[in-house]
């Protein structure tokens, strides 16, 4: 019989309806758990003709503590005339690699090249957890997601398996992947910042509890300088790098010199990994801050405690809340590598083709931050009043059951309604018809219904009632035909859209630079001859509810402006929208700079929201805004990103690699004796937890448990694989070492 563990043969995972088929005698072998999700078992069993273990069967291993681990038999071998069989099995995560490609079906065709810009949790719910029943994975659910970094990822034409997808997402987001058993009912996908991070074990030392410790050191993965290459954008020849980075300035302290704290706008890691990483010392990397006023400020020194900050001689051009870019010199040459201070140079490269490098120069261009439903920071109405409001993409397209909430006299300036869904939104220029009336009432201000579905609308003066109406009179919303878009494309993490209220059209395709517009924050661009082009792009959704096409100046427009001269550098008008159609467009313009220029990006709404009164758009919405540099004309639009530049991801990856790889690579295999099994007790603080930190007193380092291998017949014998790098980087570094 087996030792303390029991091993059973099952027909399938318990959560997949498997049933127990018999007990298996284990003669020897091991089973393991690992941070890289390569959990497996390798067992030698006594062959029993009554309980024959076959390929694709499941082995259910239950240890003395009652922990259940399941493995699907991947291989078995035998020697004829020998009563033993050798079985190897893989954990359920391996099923995610063989259950089929992630796919969508559109227009009768199955497509595998799906993707988007989403958080890991959104990728899992949108793509991984689809077609589960068809692929035999109904037991798979979403678990815990500690990392919410936006990931840009699209599968190639022949697609990826779910396991490929999960590894890519975890790699890019810097998360650790586990598929965790949730009792008998299923397995959950977790993406954590660090598995087992909250567990710290008691110190381990020779003479205390270590019998033998073997270590090997080499410089194979050592690196003191690193260049991180990202994807090569379409039309470019150089791969993306860390150059286009952006960091938020914190509260500046000191009386000269000054400390300028820098943080990632999306709360990722800051730009500094080592004390004095950047500075004027001979052992530091030279760096400057490129400000929004196109000035460069030399970095004198840098620190990581008590915060990540750089030291400067003067704060001219720097203010809390600004975005600054770390560049190599006073002429704003872009950084290409990161260096660890105070060490001899050993340069490596790291290539991750799924990461971009661009920066969105339009602050809050991803519309991620709203101060209120009618206030989008970094964008201001200029040239006159320009109402706009936040429009969630799942806003209902129609509102029914609206009635007058109280009798309504003719000529009043406001109207009370009831019967709306709780917290329903009502937008500027939307129209309502009281049954029995011939004239529409038009809303003049954004309003939100209360929890009881009651709302009071302020009417535009020319749309008051012409006759008194009793309480309870039905009210039809919006007018004939669908006035709101039925759906939106899945982009920009499905964030809320900016919906324009009434605008003005002008008479020219090129909008007037000073007419009523929504204008982004100005940015003084420091001219760099290798990046002379400034591009602007906007995602628009335009609804035309009429029986004729929308054309010309009634459509919204985008322009790059010279903010100082108040002139148009470049502009583009939205394309025509067919009758009774909703168009989702992306329009782009570019400008070739020749000197330092203060630019801004501006949006003209056209005749937004006036669809009731003529052949005009009933809905104009902005889904996102991008502004970026390019080396050549016709640059492809980068994936949408907010204030946290794609370059920051590469920057963080480079620093993480330096932190891990300045230590001599050291992987340690420790053989332990689990006395708790022999003595019949266990001490929680000394329990082995995958991913936990293990202080090795003899070596003076803290290492991380990256793998635990249990002996199937001797529960006291445990082999632990420990890694001296601060995070388990083997997964994403292993195939990128250059």
């Amino acid at each position, binding site marked *: *019989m087996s*030792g303390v563990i*029991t091993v*059973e043969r099952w027909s399938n995972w318990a959560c997949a309806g498997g*049933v*127990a*088929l*018999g*007990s298996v005698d284990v003669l020897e072998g091991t089973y393991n758990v690992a941070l890289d999700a390569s959990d497996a078992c390798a067992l030698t069993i006594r062959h*029993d003709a*009554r*309980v024959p273990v076959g390929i694709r069967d499941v082995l259910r291993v239950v240890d003395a503590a009652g922990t259940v681990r399941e493995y699907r038999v991947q291989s078995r071998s035998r020697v004829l005339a020998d009563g033993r069989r050798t079985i190897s099995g893989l954990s359920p995560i391996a099923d995610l690699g063989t259950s089929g490609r992630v796919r969508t079906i559109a227009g009768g065709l199955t497509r595998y090249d799906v993707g988007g810009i989403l958080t890991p949790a959104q990728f899992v719910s949108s793509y991984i957890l689809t077609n589960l029943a068809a692929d035999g994975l109904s037991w798979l659910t979403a678990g815990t997601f500690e990392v919410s970094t936006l990931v840009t990822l699209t599968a190639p034409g022949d697609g990826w398996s779910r396991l490929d997808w999960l590894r890519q997402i975890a790699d890019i987001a810097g998360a650790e992947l586990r598929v965790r058993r949730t009792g008998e009912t299923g397995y959950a996908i977790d993406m954590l910042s660090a598995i087992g991070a909250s567990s710290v074990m008691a110190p381990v030392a*020779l*003479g*205390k*509890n*270590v*019998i033998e410790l073997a270590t090997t050191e080499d410089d194979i993965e050592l690196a003191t300088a690193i260049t991180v290459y990202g994807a090569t954008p379409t039309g470019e020849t150089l791969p993306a790098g860390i150059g286009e980075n952006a960091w938020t300035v914190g509260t500046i302290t000191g009386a000269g010199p000054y400390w300028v704290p820098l943080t990632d706008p999306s709360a990722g890691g800051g730009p500094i990994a080592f004390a004095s990483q950047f500075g004027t010392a001979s052992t530091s990397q030279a760096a400057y801050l490129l400000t929004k006023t196109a000035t460069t400020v030399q970095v004198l020194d840098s620190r990581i405690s008590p915060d990540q900050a750089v030291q400067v001689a003067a704060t001219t051009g720097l203010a809390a809340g600004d975005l600054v870019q770390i560049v190599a010199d006073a002429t704003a040459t872009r950084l290409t590598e990161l260096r660890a201070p105070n060490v001899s140079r050993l340069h490596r490269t790291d290539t991750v083709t799924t990461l971009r490098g661009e920066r969105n120069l339009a602050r809050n261009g991803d519309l991620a931050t709203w101060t209120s439903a009618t206030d989008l920071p970094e964008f201001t109405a200029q040239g006159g009043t320009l109402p706009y409001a936040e429009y969630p993409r799942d806003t209902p397209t129609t509102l029914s059951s609206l009635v007058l909430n109280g009798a309504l006299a003719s000529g009043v300036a406001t109207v009370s309604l009831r019967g709306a869904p709780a917290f329903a939104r009502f937008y500027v220029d939307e129209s309502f018809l009281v049954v029995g009336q011939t004239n529409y009432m038009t809303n003049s201000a954004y309003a939100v219904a209360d929890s009881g579905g009651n709302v009071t609308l302020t009417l535009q003066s020319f749309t008051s009632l012409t006759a008194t109406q009793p309480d309870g009179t039905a009210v039809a919303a919006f007018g004939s035909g669908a006035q709101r878009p039925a759906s939106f494309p899945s982009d920009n993490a499905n964030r809320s859209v900016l919906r324009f209220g009434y605008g003005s059209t002008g008479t020219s395709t090129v909008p007037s630079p000073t007419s009523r517009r929504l204008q982004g924050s100005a940015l003084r661009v420091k001219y760099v001859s290798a990046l002379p082009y400034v591009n602007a792009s906007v995602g628009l959704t335009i609804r035309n509810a009429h029986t004729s096409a929308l054309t010309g100046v009634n459509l919204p427009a985008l322009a790059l402006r010279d903010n100082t001269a108040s002139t148009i550098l470049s502009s583009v008008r939205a394309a025509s929208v067919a009758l009774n159609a909703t168009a989702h467009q992306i329009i782009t313009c570019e400008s070739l700079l020749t000197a330092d220029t203060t630019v801004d990006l501006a949006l003209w709404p056209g005749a937004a929201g006036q669809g009731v009164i003529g052949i005009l758009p009933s809905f104009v919405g902005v889904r996102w805004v991008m502004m970026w540099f390019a080396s050549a004309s016709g640059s492809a639009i980068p994936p949408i990103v907010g204030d946290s530049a794609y370059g920051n991801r590469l920057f963080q990856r480079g620093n993480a690699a330096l932190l891990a790889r300045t230590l001599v690579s050291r992987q340690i295999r420790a053989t332990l*004796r689990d*006395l708790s099994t*022999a003595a019949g007790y266990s001490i929680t603080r000394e329990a082995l937890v995958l991913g936990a930190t293990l202080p090795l007193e003899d070596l003076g380092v803290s290492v991380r448990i990256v793998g635990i291998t249990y002996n199937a*017949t*001797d*529960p*006291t014998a445990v082999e632990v694989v420990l890694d001296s790098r601060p995070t388990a980087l083997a997964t994403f570094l292993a195939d990128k070492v250059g």
Partner: protein
Amino acid sequence: MALTVNGRTLASLGVTARELSGWLDGPDMARGATPLPNVLGVLPAAITTSAARQIRLTLNVPAASLTGRAAVLATLEDAFAGLLSLRFDDTPTRIVRAVAGAFTVASIAPSLSMTEMARNMIVSVPLLAFDGSSYDDEPRSVVLSTSPAEIALGTLPAPGIVQWSGAWSAGVARSLTYRSVNGIAYGVLTLTPPVGALLTASEFLEIDLGRRYVTKVTSAGVRTNAYSWVSGGAWFVPEASDGNRQAAQWPTLDVSAGAGLFLYRRSWAL
């Protein structure tokens, strides 16, 4: 000296025993040990290795004639073929399982080995007992009910087979409980027929505590795997350490419903 081989006496085989050695020797066991840091002592390894026990039997084998030796030896080889149950006269109620190795044959007068006078033989038979225990020669049966029934044991664990009968519907959980001599439940095995499965009054469930088989046996003798009926608890094996052999107080087995029979042999350490 006398012994029976698979129930046959040596006399019935036409031979007599000259010498017998090793029949009561215990197995030669090796056990690893791990030294513990900072502790005056070692941690014994959980797994032991043991060599097979060697029992050596030397027989006087008469032959009617010189050329009759081959037939006599063939008869003897047949008697010692396969897995043997050996019962020795000093432990008449116990058997030892062994396999015979190659015979060593010598003439009763080696210098005259090919003469009629020296036709009788001395045959040495090595018997290898891989099992370091002896067993009752006759199995025992204990009736199981909802009242605990004592399981008399030897000095080693005695895995046996439970035959559990009584009409049993799907979804109904029943337990087989093993209690120590002081009445504490040391092991409980819970079985529940899954949806679509049941036991009629003329069928029974066979639970092999040693091999951990669960088999449903119909009235027609059809046997099907019913391992999926195991719904909780853990497998156990009755052990002598759970009783008090000197006081003849034993651990017990009982079933929560239905009726049962526990079939087993006591085993004894050598």
